[in-house]
């Protein structure tokens, strides 16, 4: 029978990479997930634990894809703890993707928000001038720096890291660095994925200077196809209309950067 993309397909974890003490990349073979577009996600079933929306990570080996997870709550810790040989269910891919522009590009990622950025790097042209900004709390939590440099080896590029405590790279919030960079350079496109407040500030910095900007939003998700309504952001459904939205659109959305819904669907404020 043909694969039903909305039904969990079981895959086996073949390799686990420890990126930091709290972040792991789990690699598996699949026919579809290696070829998804940057920004697309899968619903990942961790049997007996939960099902989570996860951006699909690239793998250097063909025919393979991955999920990069930070252990945080019980569900992400459940995924983090899946050993080699362990099985998970995947459905999707879901959502739209970043519009791949050319020229001077700025990619901004915080934590596992770097996952769609790494996939986006596989779509750049050798003629593009690419800056990647990585934000982390401290040196321990920096990952994908070598990978980004490796993916951009044929490009004019730089990979900049900022840590909140200054233990590595530039000291301070990544959004301050974004503000500085967009002030100095007119980028052809800015892409961002990470904590909502980081995305909000990045979108503001770029959009206010008429720079094309896109952000990939994260919300609580259940169905992935736009029927349960859990992930609505104003009139938009993050899973179906997004997860990638333009700065033009986001600047008209009253909830972006400020509000998200909890499990019962009640609006709550983001903590700034």
């Amino acid at each position, binding site marked *: *029978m043909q694969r*039903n993309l*909305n*039904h*969990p397909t*079981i895959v086996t974890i073949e390799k686990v990479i420890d990126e930091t003490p709290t972040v792991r990349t789990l690699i598996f073979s699949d026919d579809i997930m290696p070829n998804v577009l940057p920004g697309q996600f899968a*619903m990942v*079933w961790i*049997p*007996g634990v*939960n*099902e*989570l929306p996860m951006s699909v990570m690239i793998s250097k080996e063909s025919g393979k894809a991955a999920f990069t997870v930070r252990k945080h709550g019980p*569900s992400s810790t459940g995924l983090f703890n899946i050993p080699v040989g362990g*099985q998970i*269910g995947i*459905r999707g891919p879901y959502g739209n993707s970043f519009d791949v522009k050319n020229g001077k590009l700025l990619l901004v990622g915080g934590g596992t928000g770097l996952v769609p950025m790494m996939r986006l790097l596989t779509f750049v042209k050798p003629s593009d001038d690419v800056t990647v900004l990585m934000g982390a709390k401290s040196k321990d939590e920096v990952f994908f720096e070598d990978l980004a440099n490796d993916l951009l080896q044929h490009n004019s590029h730089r990979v900049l890291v900022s840590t909140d405590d200054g233990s590595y790279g530039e000291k301070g919030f990544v959004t301050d660095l974004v503000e500085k960079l967009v002030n100095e350079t007119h980028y052809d496109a800015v892409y961002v994925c990470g904590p909502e407040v980081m995305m909000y500030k990045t979108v503001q910095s770029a959009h206010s200077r008429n720079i094309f900007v896109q952000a990939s939003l994260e919300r609580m998700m*259940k*169905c992935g*196809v*736009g*029927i*349960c*309504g*859990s992930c*609505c952001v*104003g*009139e938009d*459904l993050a899973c*179906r209309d997004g997860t990638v939205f333009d700065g033009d659109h986001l600047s008209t959305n009253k909830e972006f950067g400020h509000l998200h*819904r*909890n*499990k*019962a*669907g*009640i609006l709550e404020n983001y903590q700034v």
Partner: protein
Amino acid sequence: MEPSIATSIGQIQLDKPVMLASGILGISLDVFNRLYASGAGAVVTKSLSTAPWEGYPNPTIFSVKGGGWINAVGLSNPGASNFAKMIEPNQDVPIVVSLVGSVPEDFEIMIKEFENCKVKAFELNLSCPHVAKVGLEVGDDPGLVKAIVSTVKSTTNVPVIAKVGLGTSNYLNTVNTAIDSGIDAITAINTVRAMAIDVEIQRPILSNKFGGLSGTPIKPIALRCVYEISSQYDIPIIGCGGISSWEDAIEFFLAGASAVQLGSAIGDNWVGVFDEINKGIIQYMERKGFSTIKEMAGLAKKS
């Protein structure tokens, strides 16, 4: 003259006959506005309870091989009070408020929360198949159905619809009791209790193990129920279950429905499905010479 797809479900007047079913997308007023602009005749809210409910952990919704969707969301909702505040500014969208509860007092309390809201109708969820003490467990208890419907009817002048489904008793008894207790209309049917097991993992996929089946596979069952109800009772009916095309909608009209609701079809075809079905209904009516939905209602029973 172009045929009119406006319809009446008893006292409930709608400009268009295709409604958003309960449980689907019904969580923000911005989304309701968007669905209304996309051609929905009305939107039914998620079933609301007296207090906020978080629902079950994922997996809660997925598609089944061979078609259709299975879900056990667990009636997650922000609670009637929060929800009423959210829809208070609404002026334009015909909103049907779905309510779920265990005893008559639950419904009475919730209906009072909506005193300052423009509500087209209330729909009583007597048929959710995957949450204890509510839904089907209420629908299967004639004494409780009678008490709830009577209480609700004495609490509000807004039309009240009972949404029935297939439980452990004959659903026609629930319909009969609801009608005797003064219900204004019936929505038939809800999802059908079901499950799916993964053969590799060797366990049920839904965290709740059991859920409800929706979509194309249940359409013939829902159609049979609408036909049965309209054959036995003089009550306005809203058909619900697996409707995804104009042909499906027409089938339900011919079986006796005055309007239809859909949900799963949005997962497959997204929000454009409302206008697509509306257009198909108009073209069918032109071709067959009908000028109103009412002219079609129940025609299949004559043959």
